[in-house]
């Protein structure tokens, strides 16, 4: 029955009827985010079927500290893109909140205009423990959006820190947003976050124009310094990112920002293609790892062994890499434990 239902889902997801399409996309994303093995299997199959239809969007990651104005910017950018004829999907990812503990999800209140547009789709998600976590789920969600004919996918995430790296590993371009106040950017320079960023945007130029312009110059020179050394070592490194100033509220600087994005798309077309190939290979590798682990946990014997090894590691008597090697040796001795079986097991 579920196969039939999903068949429907695949059809609806590519339907011309916007209401059907939107609902199907939502259901499909729920499947790939689920912690239930049977849901994920259905989600994986659905994604597999739709995969040839996916891949045609431009994927942009937008990140920045809380209060830097990400949602307001996405709202303004999204509307401009729609005016240019694009279909825009926005995935708001909050890796810091964990679904299983209950959470308040990123809200759409600052994307009100975009949320009402027929050519946009906005979906907030929380992080989730296990099964590849948020990275694999977001990759899958991006492809589902693409299959549903959204040709511009925005992944919005809070952060200054590790998230930039994760977002860079699933998008074509990472845009870092920050406020005009000095200190907003100092932290960022210190942490080396610019390594993963393709465009820096200083927001709120309407509130503090002079400060914003100063920040722009300061960041640009810091970037030249950090990238200068790196480029010397690796000539294939992407060029120094541009630094723009905008006001997401008034729209000041927005068209320059959009031009910079288009320019990046054109100039970096070859790099983007290469980046995607690396990303997909990583996705495959990570999927193998996480699926192997969930298979191990689904088998009674292997799960017992796994838990015993966890205890030994906790007790300080075994080192994790050697313990893993031992467990994998058990898997190859007992190939039958990896055979397909019932689909209803929920993971721990």
């Amino acid at each position, binding site marked *: 029955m579920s196969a039939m239902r999903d068949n429907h889902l695949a059809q609806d997801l590519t339907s011309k009827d916007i209401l059907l399409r939107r*609902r199907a996309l*939502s259901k499909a994303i729920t499947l790939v985010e689920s912690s239930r093995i049977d849901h994920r299997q259905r989600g994986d199959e659905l994604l597999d079927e739709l995969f040839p239809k996916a891949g045609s969007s431009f994927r942009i990651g937008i990140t920045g500290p809380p209060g830097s104005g990400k949602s307001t910017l996405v709202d303004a950018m999204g509307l401009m893109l729609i005016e240019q004829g694009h279909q825009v999907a926005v995935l708001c990812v909050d890796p810091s909140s964990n679904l299983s503990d*209950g959470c*308040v999800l990123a809200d759409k209140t600052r994307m009100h205009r975009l949320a009402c547009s027929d050519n946009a789709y906005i979906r*907030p998600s929380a992080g989730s423990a296990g099964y590849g976590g948020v990275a694999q789920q977001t990759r899958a969600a991006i492809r589902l959006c693409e299959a549903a004919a959204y040709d511009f996918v925005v992944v919005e995430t809070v952060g200054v820190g590790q998230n930039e790296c994760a977002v860079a590993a699933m998008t074509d371009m990472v845009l870092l947003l920050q406020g005009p106040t000095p200190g907003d950017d100092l932290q960022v320079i210190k942490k080396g976050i610019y390594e993963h960023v393709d465009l820096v945007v200083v927001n709120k130029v309407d509130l503090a124009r002079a400060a914003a312009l100063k920040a722009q110059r300061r960041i640009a020179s810091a970037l030249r310094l950090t990238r200068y050394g790196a480029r010397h070592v690796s000539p294939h490194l992407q060029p120094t990112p541009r630094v723009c100033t905008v006001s997401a*509220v*008034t729209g000041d600087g927005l068209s320059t920002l959009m031009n910079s994005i288009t320019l990046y798309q054109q100039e970096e077309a070859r790099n983007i293609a290469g980046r995607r190939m690396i990303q997909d290979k990583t996705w495959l590798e990570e999927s193998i790892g996480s699926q192997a682990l969930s298979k191990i946990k689904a088998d009674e014997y292997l799960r017992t062994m796994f838990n015993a090894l966890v205890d030994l590691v906790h007790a300080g008597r075994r080192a994790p890499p050697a313990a893993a090697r031992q467990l994998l040796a058990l898997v190859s001795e007992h190939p039958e434990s990896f055979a397909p079986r019932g689909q209803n097991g*929920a993971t721990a």
Partner: protein
Amino acid sequence: MPKFNPISISGDHMQEAGATPVLELALTLANGLTYVKAAQQRGLNLDDFAGRLSFFWGIGMDFYPEVAKLRAARLLWWRIMQKFGAQEDKSSKLRAHCQTSGWSLAAQDPYNNVVRTTVEALAAVFGGTQSLHTNAFDEAIALPSDMSSRIARNTQLILQEETNITAVVDPWGGSYFMESLTKQIADAAWQIIEDIDAMGGMIRAIESGWVNQQIEESAAAKQAKIDSGKIVIVGVSKYRCDHEAEQETLRVDTTKVRESQLQLLSDIKAARDCDAAREALEAITRCGYDGKGNLLELSISAMKARATVGEVSEALEKCFGRYTAEARLVSGVYGPNYGDHDHWAQLKTRIAGFSKRHGRPPRVLIAKLGQDGHDRGAKIVASSFADLGFAVDIGSLFQTAEECARQAIENDVHAIGVSTLSGAHTTLVPAMLDELKRQGGDGICVFVGGVIPRQDYSALYDSGIIGIYGPGTPIPDAASGVLEGILNRLES
């Protein structure tokens, strides 16, 4: 302009949203001094306008602190105005209006509210308010009826004309207890004002979400104390009435109201000189962009050309954008303040069980529909549900049914909680259900919270909603009911 009241600097809405008297006092005075600075920056002379500023306090049930708050307010405002260098006496005098708390009124056993309002009114008078608003006893159930409004007015008249309590200025002055409480409250509020100053002022504090967070934390903590019986509300958390008589309430046909308002608008637009109105509106937008001219003056001439409030706002919005409060919610406040740990833990376990069985936690969208900004209840439900293990989405204020249904479908939620205090539930809830059906989300459950008269319950239940949770419903009861409703829907 000797008799012009430029602004009423309000703390009432903050107390209604959950602020304690101390927090209300501090935030309001911090707002006040920000206005003063802004006026000075525009070149106004302090003594020319300071005497015309006025304040607006909410008065809750905690009697002594409310009296002390009004006394402390005058002290602190005087201190602030001295720092600004006020010369005239009038500039340092704080004038205030007070309103008894609407939030303190209960939907259960509502005649008790007459007593509550009286006690609150008394605190306002003892505190030395210049003017007073008393609430009607049925405001937790419906919009006030003629009868309840009359009693509210008479409450004031009785205090004023039968009791002689207004014959004395500051009757508590000199009481050791009251003087020391006043000092405590003044010191605590002054500390907050200094903290805000260290943050870079009130505007930054608001923008950073800090102010909202303080208010919501205090609201969630209070609700948890009520739900667990640590704070007593007679007829709600203790001494409940077994057989409550149904209350006669004012009935408003919201569809008719809406239609007649729309008719009025279109009549005005048809009768006015459209070019003049358009030009006046364009002038506002232009001034917003280039800063040349006076927006207030231009707004008045636009109104004289019969531009509507909506049109003037729109003209301003073009250059300034629209402020949307970020629905960043507090978490982890309700749970620890709720006393009955076993009950709380049990509920958490049930929700964790749901998440495991269904591959994700129960996901709910908490929505405010229609023209009604009272979101204290919605926010407490959202934040405490999240504490329990729900995944909670929040809708924007003033959402339409269509937008809300769409958000619910895009986020693939199990249920929508509609909070409404404007009396529009009889139109909004059916519109919500219709929209869900139209957009293919008929699997999504709907529950309702806010001010809903008893006599509307059966019609709402008949339309297919899973629960109604009026004021006074303990959060765990609502959570458990919603969970039940979601499970029933999933199984059928």
